[in-house]
């Protein structure tokens, strides 16, 4: 049905081809570049925070000119610090990692790796991108409204988020935050529905579910849990908006005082928001990390030249993680006043997640075992992702357990842990993915030399920051503190804060090397071969870069799983998925 015509007609105008494009590859690249832009914004915010933490209360006259409200005369105000922290979290979680992994790689790879010409609904796909653009603008623009950007944390806990007089950022900044999130949820829903429908219905002949690359599996599962978890947050956000502007008290109890004034609200409870937020919030971290694990697992066989270890088991573990992720949100609320029995339930569920997670981690390591390892830039980042997954996961054991979490809750231990997982693993996988699929996107290679330098700056700097934060947390450093130096028991941490800040500046700076490499290689990079990494997955069976419609007249037919490397009896160490069984034996 229309398959042929869709293959040949390329959009004629520049606007339709590169701006309002319905081609999944263009939309994927648009998402990816938007995510990079937002990452610079989110990184810039944290650079300001780290300046305050390294040299508390220092006067930066030039910054005072850029932020006349937040840094009047160059000294950072506490409210401004809270806005920075809130927006850093929001931007990084939703507008960098979600956008880059699901929007970017999801759009780019799903049709290519399952053998489809495009998404099931190309126009809806375009719409989802053009919904995220205003969401980004609303979020960034909120810094310039009265009171500044939202300051209640990326979790937007009431009453700070629900009472407009609570903080300067609780005024219009918080309203715009809700608006931006609503746009994001709308965009994510459009994208997620499209992904799931496409993966169900658009797989090419022979591409059974159990022959899909793990990137596609993880995109599928991540979209599914996103679609299940975001709706309750949407409901909660609507109610929060009513609390702020309609005079309702869904999240506000009686007896609240702000500025010596008793609020008229009664009947609600902030705990309700916490439940609803974390019912989304916890599955959301798996929405972020599963695609990162998928990319990591997908790239491993390419650079070890041997089949992936434990494919089937990994798929089952992904399902187990997805199912468990929906019933463990309470482990974010151990100190919110919870019956110890309920806490025990959430602790057992959370620790149960370590089982499938560990199996996946072990499968990664076993995939390395006995392979013919090669270390181009993507592989370095893959190794980085595995290392962060291991280290970060180790910290999770302490936080998932109510007994130890009560001590560690809201400390830098938590900050260090989740940055290693949903910051580190995802960042490493995204970089690996960009270096790896760049030739597919632009027909050119990125510079290997710059890529290696980029890795050897990024990886140690990342570790230096977030491993140190674990120790700061054990020492009792609470998160979100603007002026830790005012507390005697924290003053001795000054040196380690300086260390973290310097490493953070190095990490931030190193990313400009990546951006330079990226944009330079788009135009100047070495021309890539059709299958530059000699990989077996389906996307490399189309010309590089892939044309509109991805394949010529005929869609490819799939005869084997995506990881047939070094098959005994086959010619060469890589047997593409399109190779029929008559040419090389099917091993899976």
């Amino acid at each position, binding site marked *: 049905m229309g398959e042929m015509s869709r293959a040949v007609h390329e959009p004629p105008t520049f606007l339709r081809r590169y701006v309002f494009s319905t081609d999944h590859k263009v939309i994927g690249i648009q998402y990816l570049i938007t995510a990079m832009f937002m990452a610079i914004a989110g990184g810039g915010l944290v650079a300001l925070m780290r300046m305050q933490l390294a040299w508390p209360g220092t006067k930066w006259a030039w910054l005072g000119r850029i932020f006349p409200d937040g840094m009047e005369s160059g000294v950072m105000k506490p409210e401004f610090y809270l806005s920075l922290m809130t927006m850093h979290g929001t931007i990084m979680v939703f507008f960098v990692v979600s956008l880059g992994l699901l929007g970017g790689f999801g759009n780019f790879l799903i049709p290519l790796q399952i053998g489809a010409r495009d998404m099931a609904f190309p126009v809806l796909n375009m719409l989802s991108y053009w919904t995220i653009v205003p969401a980004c603008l609303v979020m960034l623009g909120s810094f310039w409204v009265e009171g500044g950007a939202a300051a209640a944390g990326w979790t937007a806990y009431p009453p700070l988020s629900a009472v407009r007089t609570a903080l300067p950022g609780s005024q219009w900044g918080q309203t715009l935050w809700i608006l931006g999130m609503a746009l994001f949820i709308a965009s994510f829903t459009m994208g997620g529905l499209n992904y799931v429908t496409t993966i169900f219905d658009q797989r090419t002949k*022979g591409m059974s579910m159990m022959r899909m690359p793990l990137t596609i599996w993880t995109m599928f599962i991540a979209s599914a849990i996103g679609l299940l978890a975001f709706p309750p947050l949407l409901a909660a956000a609507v109610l929060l908006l009513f609390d702020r502007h309609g005079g309702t008290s869904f999240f506000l109890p009686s007896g609240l005082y702000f500025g010596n004034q008793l609020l008229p609200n009664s009947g609600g409870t902030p705990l309700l928001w916490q439940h609803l937020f974390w019912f989304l919030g916890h599955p959301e971290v798996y929405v972020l990390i599963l695609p990162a694990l998928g990319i990591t697992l997908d790239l491993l066989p390419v650079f070890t030249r041997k089949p992936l270890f434990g494919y089937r088991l990994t798929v089952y573990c992904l399902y187990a993680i997805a199912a468990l992720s929906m019933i463990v949100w309470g482990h974010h609320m151990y100190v919110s006043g919870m019956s110890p029995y309920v806490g025990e339930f959430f602790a057992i569920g959370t620790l149960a997640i370590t089982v499938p997670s560990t199996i996946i981690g072990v499968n990664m390591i076993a995939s390395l075992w006995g392979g013919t390892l090669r270390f181009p830039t993507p592989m370095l980042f893959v190794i980085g992702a595995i290392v962060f997954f291991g280290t970060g996961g180790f910290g999770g054991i302490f936080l998932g357990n109510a007994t130890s979490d009560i001590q560690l809750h809201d400390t830098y231990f938590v900050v260090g842990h989740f940055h290693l997982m949903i910051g580190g693993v995802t960042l490493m996988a995204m970089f690996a993915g960009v270096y790896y699929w760049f030739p597919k996107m632009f027909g050119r290679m990125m510079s290997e030399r710059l890529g290696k330098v980029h890795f050897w700056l990024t990886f140690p700097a990342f570790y230096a920051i977030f491993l140190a934060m674990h120790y700061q947390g054990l020492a009792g450093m609470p998160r979100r503190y603007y002026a830790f130096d005012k507390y005697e028991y924290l003053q001795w941490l000054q040196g380690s804060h300086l260390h973290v800040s310097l490493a953070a500046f190095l990490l931030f700076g190193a990313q400009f090397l990546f951006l330079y490499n990226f944009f330079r290689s788009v135009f100047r990079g070495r021309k890539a071969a059709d299958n530059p990494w000699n990989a077996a997955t389906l996307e490399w069976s189309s010309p590089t870069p892939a044309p509109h419609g991805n394949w010529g007249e005929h869609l490819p037919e799939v005869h084997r799983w995506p990881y047939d490397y070094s098959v005994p009896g086959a010619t060469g160490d890589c047997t593409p998925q399109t190779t029929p069984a008559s040419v090389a034996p099917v091993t899976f």
Partner: protein
Amino acid sequence: MHTTAAITKTSWEGGVSPFGTGWSKLMMWLFIVTDGLVFAGFLAIYGFLRLAGPSWPDRAKMFHLDFIALMTFTLITSSATMATAVGAARKGQGKLARRFLALTILGGLGFLGMQAYEWSSLIRAGATLSSNPWGAPLFGACFFVITGFHGSHVLSGVIVLAATWVRSGMGLSRPEGVEVAGLYWHFVDLVWVFIFTLFYLV
């Protein structure tokens, strides 16, 4: 694309839709799941607040349950007419399908009109988002937000049905389009059954 030759072992082997449906129908089912979860969220919030609250007003004193029953009856009837329209469209009886689509739209509009009447009588009695004459201020908040959210769904359903009606008049609508619109309509009606039960009866 639905050639039987392409089905090698099972319909999950690729090259065919495993459910034997078009993309838009599958997408509508998935959308209904997510949208249903928004309502589930709202109703869970409502349950939480009601159980946590000290007292809840007596609904029998505030609403005329006969009237609410009539609203419910109208909406459920519109589901029946919708099902007839889908069946007719599938058999290629375009005229009959359009007639029953029109009846469904009328049912939807009737429901919305009755809801508007119910809202205005409650507002005249003094109910607002933050207070109401029967105590428990959260009752008014829950009532207006949840029934309002459902009402907006009915309204968008009416718009979708009207668009389908116009398109089928111009010969643009395929039977599956009517069916997809119908799926959404049944969903909106089903949600009302939950709201009716949990809000007015229990």
